[in-house]
């Protein structure tokens, strides 16, 4: 059997195993070990364990549980409540104002943590009931929360960019900086979409009634101070890191500590909040780590088969694609796989195959990291696979059905694809800030 054929059969066995509904890490790890033993015999028996040592030596991976901890501490302790109230009062009078406020909160939350789970939890517990009460269209609500929470992986700090940085051997500081403007661009595009849509169809997002808006200006301005605490958290983390005071991993520890202190300061840190946060952190960290562990074993098998070279030959010599053709092929294949695979697993399996090719073709790997992250956001949104779908299903009230959740993401996915195209055509949106900062 040729190597290409083996690679294809491994890939399809993995897909088949995933379809059985076994836990992702079990399906990927199992297929990897079976094929490793078939291909290389006993010598491959150490390979799965070896992957655990690669993980141990990946220092930036330490940020993962710490960011997860921060996100849960943030949402469980209700520090976000005041922030949401601030946006609620200031944006309420507009049509679709609460939806805009939700995007605002999500952008702020994204700047305070590196994953989308926290945004999702805050969106479902805070924004969702408020918007339902104000007779917002349920498809609009579900779409706004999912699209908003997806910003978490783009706006720094970003765990996806940390992982990408490890795999592509790129500087995480540059990657984080490159994520700032594309993240804000997307947030702005979401807001624009909401404004236009609610202006055309006011029933989707009615403005708050006048009596609810009546609030003395003094109180309105006092609410603005709710934004100070998040700024403090953002500075203690991203600020210290980008300022070069603390290292990447240290900044996540500082951020986790500051968030805990903020919860204490706000008198919100009860025993239950602490234990729930710790249990959820362990649960989600284990999920990620075991998936990465299995995906590393899988990609070792792929690597051993020379898949990087095979893909290069396929794209360049068999299909005669131009560099841009390859770039678009890669994004399309990511989007396609994203609908099947978990995005962490996808990153560990596919990025090592594509990144060397990207660099060889003369594209900027930092810029590509941003494109990859946008694709990840889209993959995260699209069914059948996405944490947002699990979370939404678990947290949303029964009147929001699964079909509503699926339908709600469509317009936002279009907006994201436009954003992807914009960043592809204008790389400066991503690259200007890191180039300016690092003085290139």
């Amino acid at each position, binding site marked *: 059997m040729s190597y290409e054929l083996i690679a294809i059969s491994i890939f399809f066995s993995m897909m088949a*195993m995933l*379809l*059985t*509904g*076994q*836990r*992702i*890490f*079990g*399906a990927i*790890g*199992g*297929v*990897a*070990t*079976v094929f490793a*033993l078939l291909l290389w015999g006993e010598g491959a*028996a*150490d*390979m*799965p*364990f*070896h992957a*655990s*040592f690669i*993980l*141990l030596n990946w*220092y930036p*991976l*330490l940020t993962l*549980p*710490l960011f997860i*901890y921060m996100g849960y501490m943030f949402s469980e302790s209700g520090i976000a409540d005041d922030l949401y109230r601030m946006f609620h009062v200031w944006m309420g009078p507009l049509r679709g104002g609460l939806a805009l406020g939700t995007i605002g909160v999500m952008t702020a939350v994204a700047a305070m943590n590196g994953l989308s789970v926290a945004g999702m939890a805050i969106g479902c517990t805070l924004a969702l009931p408020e918007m339902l009460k104000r007779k917002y269209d349920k498809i609009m609500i579900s779409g706004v929360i999912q699209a908003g929470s997806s910003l978490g992986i783009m706006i720094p700090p970003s765990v996806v960019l940390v992982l990408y940085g490890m795999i592509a051997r790129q500087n995480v500081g540059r990657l984080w900086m490159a994520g700032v403007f594309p993240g804000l661009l997307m947030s702005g595009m979401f807001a624009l979409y909401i404004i236009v849509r609610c202006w055309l169809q006011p029933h989707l997002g009615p403005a708050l009634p006048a009596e609810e808006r009546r609030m003395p200006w003094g109180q309105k301005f006092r609410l603005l101070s709710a934004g100070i605490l998040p700024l403090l958290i953002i500075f203690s983390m991203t600020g210290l890191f980008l300022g070069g*005071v*603390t290292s990447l*991993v*240290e900044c996540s*520890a*500082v951020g*986790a*500590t500051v968030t805990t202190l903020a919860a204490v300061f706000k008198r919100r840190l009860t025993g239950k909040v602490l*234990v729930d946060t*710790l249990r959820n*952190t*362990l649960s*989600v*960290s*284990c*999920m990620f780590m*075991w*998936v990465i562990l*299995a995906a590393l*074993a899988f990609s070792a098998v792929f690597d051993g088969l020379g898949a990087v070279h095979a893909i290069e030959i396929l794209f360049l010599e068999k299909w005669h694609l131009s560099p841009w053709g390859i770039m678009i092929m890669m994004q399309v294949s990511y989007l396609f796989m994203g609908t*099947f*695979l*978990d995005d962490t697993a996808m990153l560990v399996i596919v990025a090592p195959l594509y990144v060397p090719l990207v660099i060889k073709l003369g594209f900027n790997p930092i810029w590509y990291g941003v494109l990859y992250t946008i694709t990840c956001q889209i993959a995260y949104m699209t069914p*059948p*696979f996405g*944490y947002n779908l*699990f979370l939404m299903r678990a947290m949303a009230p029964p009147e929001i059905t699964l079909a509503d959740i699926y339908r709600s993401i469509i317009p936002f996915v279009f907006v994201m694809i436009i954003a992807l195209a914009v960043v592809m055509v204008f790389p400066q949106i991503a690259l200007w800030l890191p180039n300016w900062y690092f003085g290139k």
Partner: protein
Amino acid sequence: MPKAIRIYVRYVEAANKAIGVVSMYLIFGMMGVLLYESLFRTILNEPHIWVVETAQFIMAAYYLVGGGYSMMLDSHVRMDLLYSKWSPKGQALADSLTSLLLGFYLVLLIIGGFAGTKYALVYGQVNYTPWAPRLAPIKIIMTFGMVMMLLQVIAQFFRDLARARGKTIP
């Protein structure tokens, strides 16, 4: 289900829960070590060589030893495109079949773990860093976590088998 199996499931789950609840707190260990270092380095200008590895070791222990408990919490995501449409019995049947593959993966992890631990013990392997800590202790902890994970997967397998036959293990 025979009594021996029920006892096995009960003890393994109790053990994994206890271990998991303890390992939950390891995240404070990571935070503490890193915070200590950032304070000492930035304020007192006194870096330490043991910090990075200590934090890494805690991390490895955290997710591997906590693994069994995470199985109990059902935290591991599945691709449930088809799975979610099956009856609970069908899901249990599918799980009990496919967890054989999962078990196979874990067995190989553990084989590698034992081999690695043995090597580290016999040759007194140290890490290639200035601090050069011995690797045997962390390898033992990691392998222990993997064994506990396998025991939990087996317990889960018994549960699924019982559910597939329309029974439950208390």
